[in-house]
């Protein structure tokens, strides 16, 4: 299965934030959109980092005044991006091995989406359920 089939049903909008915005705004956005990470983009809308719940929590543990920090202060800059044609299987593997949960997806340099490990798990679960259902139907047909 390709990442493409997960993105296809997520609409075209990716929730992004710029590095000069405040963590306050990031937290509001994460809560309002019920998501776990924001892609940080520059003026050309190219992804330059990612800011996850975890990045914020880590800072909150040591700094009660984190809300006025800038996104650039907390974002992860070593960004691993994927492509729509990447296999879900290998992206899940990379996320698990490198311990992160969101990956921006880029096509021709342009941000086209973001997938979470949850998205991949859900798609793979549906794939397996589908396969089981198909096999069961065939077995039942043999019996009839």
């Amino acid at each position, binding site marked *: *299965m*390709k990442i*493409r*089939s*997960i*993105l*296809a*049903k*997520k*609409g*075209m*909008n990716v929730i992004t934030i710029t590095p000069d915005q405040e963590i306050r705004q990031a937290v509001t956005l994460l809560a309002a959109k019920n998501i776990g990470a924001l892609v940080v983009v520059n003026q050309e809308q190219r992804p330059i980092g990612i800011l996850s719940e975890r990045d914020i929590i880590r800072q909150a543990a040591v700094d009660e005044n984190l809300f006025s920090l800038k996104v650039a202060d907390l974002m992860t800059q070593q960004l*691993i*991006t*994927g*492509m729509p*044609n*990447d*296999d879900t*299987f*290998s*992206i899940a*593997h*990379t996320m698990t091995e490198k311990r992160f949960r969101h*990956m921006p997806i880029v*096509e021709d340099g342009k941000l086209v989406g973001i997938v979470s490990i949850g998205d991949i798990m859900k798609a793979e*679960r*549906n*794939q397996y*359920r*589908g*396969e*089981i*259902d*198909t*096999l069961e*139907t*065939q077995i*039942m*047909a*043999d019996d*009839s």
Partner: protein
Amino acid sequence: MSQNGTLESPLRVAVVGAGPTGFYTAEHLFKQKEYVVTVDMYERLPIPFGLVRYGVAPDHPKIKSVTNVYDRIAQNPGFRFFGNVEIGKHITVPEMQAYYHQIVFTTGAQTDRRLNIPGEDLAGSLPATEFVAWYNGHPDYRDYEVDLSHENVAVVGIGNVAMDVARILCRTPEELYQTDIADYALEALRQSKVKNVYVMGRRGPGQAAFTTPEIKELGEMEDADAYVLPEEAELDVLSQAALADSSDRATMKKVEIIQSYAGRVPSGKSRRLTVRFLVSPLELVDDGEGNIACMRLVKNELYATDAGTLRPRATEKVEELPVTMVFRAIGYRGVPIPGVPFYDSWGVILNREGRVLDPETQEPLAGLYTGGWIKRGPSGVIGTNKPDALETVKNMLEDVASEKTLCPDKTGQAEIFAFVQNRQPDFFTYDDWTRLDALELAKGEAVGRPRVKFTSVDEMLKALGR
């Protein structure tokens, strides 16, 4: 707004497209207990079941047995079928909005993706989707010209469509007679001169999209040998590492079967099916008269992307494959429906988890939904569409609860029926299909075949005495 979904005012849903997802959508709607629902299913073709009838290979009858499940769904008293009715032609989406609270588009992915190489449009270069529709008796393709006088044929792609096409080209007339393949296709394949079929994958054995049973089946054909070049059966270092890392048993089994075909000595069978790995077509060479002289292809090597996927990349090595007929089977693509937002670069209806979105605002358009391949693109097996349809139906029900549905001004089942009849007098009901089904089975029984399909709409109308 008055409450919809009661006995007095049932929730009226239209499903556009009678393939697996259309039926699973209806099933989920009927299974829930909160609302009373009626489902009108519209289908462009007279006969339901979409790719199960017109896509699944005829030599895979077990996969088609899923229609028994759909048959039971269609028995629900709230279900109606309107076949031979095309949305956008006989009825428009805005017109439907006057009759239904919710409309679900499950039209699938009907066209093929192009290779984008020189020579792609030469005579003898065909989309596999059309060949598949042709041999399966699709009414739009019964007069399709397929010249099977070529000895060497390539199928570009390595997914299940590519496998189906290759197998059908290699089966004997006797094997095909035991299937419900269209009569005219059986005749044409009986005269076929095809000797060598090459199936071509861009990546290696470790990434092949086909399933284990599909590759195993190739080695069990009556009069065709399966073959793989020994050097292409070997896993490269990256694939070996990925496989060791994942310990994916299904892929290991697949690789094992592929390697068992490597370097096999021909057993004297009349046809040979060669699965090629790590190759991409560069050009179909013109013979000067608009036909294919041969295919130029390039050998690929694999590299790992940042995200960890093994992707193909062209090497310097170029080769000529002496084929004069080429099927492209690199994937299906959805077709837009007039009046429904389409996301062209993905080939799907613009949606978020099945809710159709307004392209301007990215907010859901009330009452419009989608499911299946036109929602997520072509992926998975038939059954994958069941959880996919469930996701859409969950959102539909949530929107009913929050009264975000269409507000049709015309009500009543009879009113819709009259409207459809007025626009397309030759529409088919589910009862019509049940009668045609019985006739097809009887025609088959008379000649010792599982079924003989009706392949033209006129023929179907005549059989029904219309």
